[in-house]
């Protein structure tokens, strides 16, 4: 439960002073190299200053020296838990600049890969969140299921983490002949596993005690800070770019947008952020079921341009990645290299709200709040 600094009085008249504590850059709960400078009043946090940049590679500078297709492997390495989606967003941007139409089969393949990636990414988020707070078993269960998705990816393009699969105008390989059958089997296999996760972690009393009413994010603050994705939806806004600014073939599928309802605490608390991700996995399965049934036959490489050379212009294109709005601002000067690629990474934006969420909480709550934000440092630092 949140305390405020006003509650603390020095009864005995002992001298107190503010303490500064560095959490990180090497700390198991930060999921990478992130340093949080905490200002403490006893054990109550008065300010959090995140120091980032430990993984900075200046992706944007690299991109300027590459041709458009060469940038795709670099985008893989930003949010390395959702590489498919990074490629997806980037190629949509370049295709808008080029003004080309994509075969329907390719769009379906992209959606299938994107939704599998969303489930895989959420599994890591939920599993590690449990592990951060002390529940190790759900972590192993989540990774067991994620492995099966990675095997499907491996079967499709040969890689398990960094795919370089979605190309401008198409995808690198067509689906393996067994893919549809195995993917459908996975959907059937995975449905009961969500219930297992709910029994094991979601409704676990210790887990609820640690996360309910911790780090409450009001909706207006969330919008002002540009928060998107599951975090925004947990604060109660039905906002999903797959529906609200639709792209690819998402308008052909029937699915719901889960929002936080404050089931065990207040709307927008850490538990809501966790639970929205669980519900999103169910919706992704719904999309997958429909897409796997409807996928048309066709050629996947017919629209791949021999030379990617967009006309002078600019585009800001965005997709709903597993962590929120993933935007690419691409400027073309008419040559084969992008003039400027700016990435609006959801992790980068969502991390900026740490100070707002942590104020007045205890040090131990930082772990619960940071885990519920679900950042990937590769994308924060780019």
């Amino acid at each position, binding site marked *: 439960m949140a305390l405020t600094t006003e509650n603390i009085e020095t009864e005995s008249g002992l001298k107190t002073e503010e303490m500064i504590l560095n959490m990180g850059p090497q700390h198991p709960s930060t999921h990478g190299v992130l340093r949080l400078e905490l200002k403490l009043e006893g054990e109550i946090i008065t300010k959090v200053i995140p120091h980032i940049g430990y993984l900075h590679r*200046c992706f944007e500078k690299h991109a300027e020296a590459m041709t458009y297709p060469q940038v795709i492997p670099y985008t893989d390495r930003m949010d390395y838990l959702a590489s498919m989606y990074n490629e997806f967003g980037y190629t949509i941007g370049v295709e808008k*600049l080029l003004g080309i139409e994509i075969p329907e089969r390719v769009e379906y393949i992209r959606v299938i890969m994107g939704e599998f990636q969303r489930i895989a990414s959420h599994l890591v988020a939920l599993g590690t969140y449990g592990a951060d707070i002390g529940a190790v078993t759900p972590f192993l269960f989540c990774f067991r299921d994620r492995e099966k998705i990675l095997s499907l990816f491996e079967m499709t393009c040969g890689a398990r983490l960094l795919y370089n699969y979605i190309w401008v105008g198409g995808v690198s390989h067509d689906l393996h002949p067994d893919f549809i059958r195995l993917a459908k089997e996975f959907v059937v296999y995975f449905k009961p596993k969500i219930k297992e996760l709910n029994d094991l972690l979601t409704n676990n009393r210790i887990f609820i005690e640690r996360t309910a009413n911790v780090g409450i994010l009001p909706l207006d603050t969330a919008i002002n*800070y540009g928060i998107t994705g599951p975090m925004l939806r947990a604060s109660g806004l039905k906002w999903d770019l797959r529906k609200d600014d639709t792209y690819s073939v998402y308008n052909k599928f029937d699915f719901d947008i889960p929002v936080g309802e404050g089931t065990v605490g207040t709307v927008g608390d850490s538990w809501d952020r966790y639970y929205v991700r669980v519900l999103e996995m169910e919706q992704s399965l719904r999309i997958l079921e429909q897409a796997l049934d409807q996928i048309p036959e066709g050629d996947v490489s017919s629209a791949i341009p021999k030379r990617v050379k967009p*006309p002078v*212009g*600019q585009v*800001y294109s965005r997709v709903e990645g597993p962590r929120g*709005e993933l935007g690419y601002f691409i400027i073309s000067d008419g040559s084969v290299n992008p003039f400027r690629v700016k990435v609006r990474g959801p992790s980068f934006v969502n991390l900026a709200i740490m100070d707002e969420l942590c104020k007045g909480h205890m040090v131990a709550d930082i772990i619960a709040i940071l885990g519920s934000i679900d950042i990937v440092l590769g994308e924060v630092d*780019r």
Partner: protein
Amino acid sequence: MKTSEEIYKSLKEKFGDSIIELNSAQPVEAFIIVNPQSIDEVCLFLKDNEEFKFDSLMCLSGVDDANGEKKTNEDGSTAIIGATLSVFYHLESIELKHKVTLKVSVNKDNPEVKSVTGVWSHADWHEREAYDLLGIKFLNHPDLRRILMPYDWEAGYPLRKDYENPEFYQGMKVPY
């Protein structure tokens, strides 16, 4: 739903000369060019006005325009005159579902833009990033420090087109 033309007309009426022009000649995206010294007022108006309600800043990006003319001085050294840096603002209204892009351009020798952190807190880190990588100074920003590069990086701003790596950083060799 408002189009860029309608927004441009309303802004022109309200702010006059501070709104420079509407560029819709290039493919995909039109943008409105605004005076860098009044961008904060324009943004506040766009956010609070009932007709627009741009409550969300999607993205804020700094760009080195790589323009300007090369001029050779008498002593043989060259200088670039008239180069600019730009900042793009992509705004969106969640309620009314419309979008607009604003652009400001500033001289590279004295790149000063009014900060919009007071309008959207989201701008805070994006402005720090633009400062860090391109050296654009945001006036009235509460905490303008480097964010991605080391705090003691003294070799300039990496995303500028004329940037060159230093040979050493803190005694360590930089090119590897």
